[in-house]
């Protein structure tokens, strides 16, 4: 590919790094794993870049590649590892009681998400990204109806998982 294409690609990736970071955050088991996954996604995006013709939104195209890479990489996972504490939680400033409770609850929610399956994590991520069910269908290929049912079940599952985390089960 030409240097121009490379520059254009790097610029687009720079603008949309958040998408790749979030996928790595959900699917990576530790920092090294997240970095490896990040690199792999960038390589796959670059390899596919010449075929991007703007028919789909760049973000949709990026989500597809990032999730396809994260899910089908199928690295050996002997046990579920809890996701690391998300850096957006101001845990060092959690002075008030209210903040501390909020922090604990967020940690529980994060631990619960890490116990979901690969597919459930993808649905949760797109939900958190505020994607419509139509967009989710376009990215994942799961029908709208199935996605709605699955989303309700995931919410129930997360509720029971956060309770399990609270009671240490």
């Amino acid at each position, binding site marked *: 590919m030409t240097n121009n294409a*490379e520059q254009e690609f*790097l610029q687009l990736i*720079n603008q949309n*790094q*958040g998408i790749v*970071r*979030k996928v790595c*955050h959900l699917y990576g088991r530790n920092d090294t794993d997240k970095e*490896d996954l*990040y*690199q*792999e996604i*960038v*390589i*796959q995006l*670059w*390899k*596919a870049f010449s*075929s*991007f013709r703007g028919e789909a939104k760049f973000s949709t*195209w990026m989500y*597809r*590649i990032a*999730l*396809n*890479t994260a*899910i*089908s*990489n*199928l690295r*050996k996972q002997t046990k579920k590892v809890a996701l690391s504490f*998300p*850096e*957006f*939680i101001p845990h060092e400033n959690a002075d008030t009681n209210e903040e501390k409770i909020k922090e604990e*609850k*967020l940690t529980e*929610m994060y631990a619960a998400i890490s116990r979901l*399956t*690969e*597919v*459930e994590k*993808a649905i*949760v991520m797109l*939900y*958190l990204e*505020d994607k419509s069910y139509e967009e989710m269908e*376009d*990215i*994942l*290929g*799961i029908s709208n109806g*199935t996605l709605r*049912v*699955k989303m309700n079940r*995931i*919410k129930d599952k*997360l*509720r029971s998982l*956060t309770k399990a985390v609270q009671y240490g089960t």
Partner: protein
Amino acid sequence: MELDQLKEMWSDVGSKQPGTSAEELQGMLQKKSQSPIAKMKRNLTWELVTIVVFYSITIFSMRNYEKIFASFTILLLIIGLLFAIYFYFKYRLLQSMECITCEVKSNLQMQLQTLEKYVRIYFVFGNLLTPIVFFVTGFITYMQRDGDLTISPLRFWTIFSIIGLLFSVAVYFLNKWYLHTLYGQHIQKLKDILQDMEELK
């Protein structure tokens, strides 16, 4: 805590992390993919290189044995032709194994179907090539040493066939175990993910 409460803070995930610089990104573009399919493609290339090197060494070392050189050339041609067909099929399947820009579900379905075909080809060719090579070698040996055999032809072929049969059975189980070790877990994981995508009990 509900998922919707996390949604409010989700947009900030990763934003406090320093972004990857343009130089680092550029460096990543030069690296090799570590995806399972990329590794399979590299393995296939190595298989091809090994065969070519093996062929070259064999032909080079056989050039002084005029008596059997012609027969071995025929043997190598037969095996070479079978290998060429085998590599062609495997290469074509690897090229069509994934569609990274497609919807996740259709990409996984494509991967599963193609990988199952790939394993079948691997298995069938592996099991066919072994007895073919074995019996062609036996036939050539027999033709070359026809006059100096110390045992009767019937005895020679009986012993040879029994060894060939035992060898083929052993290779069959070895192939089965090897393919399961290489791809069994991968195929099962793909099936589980696809079932998770479809399941609505």
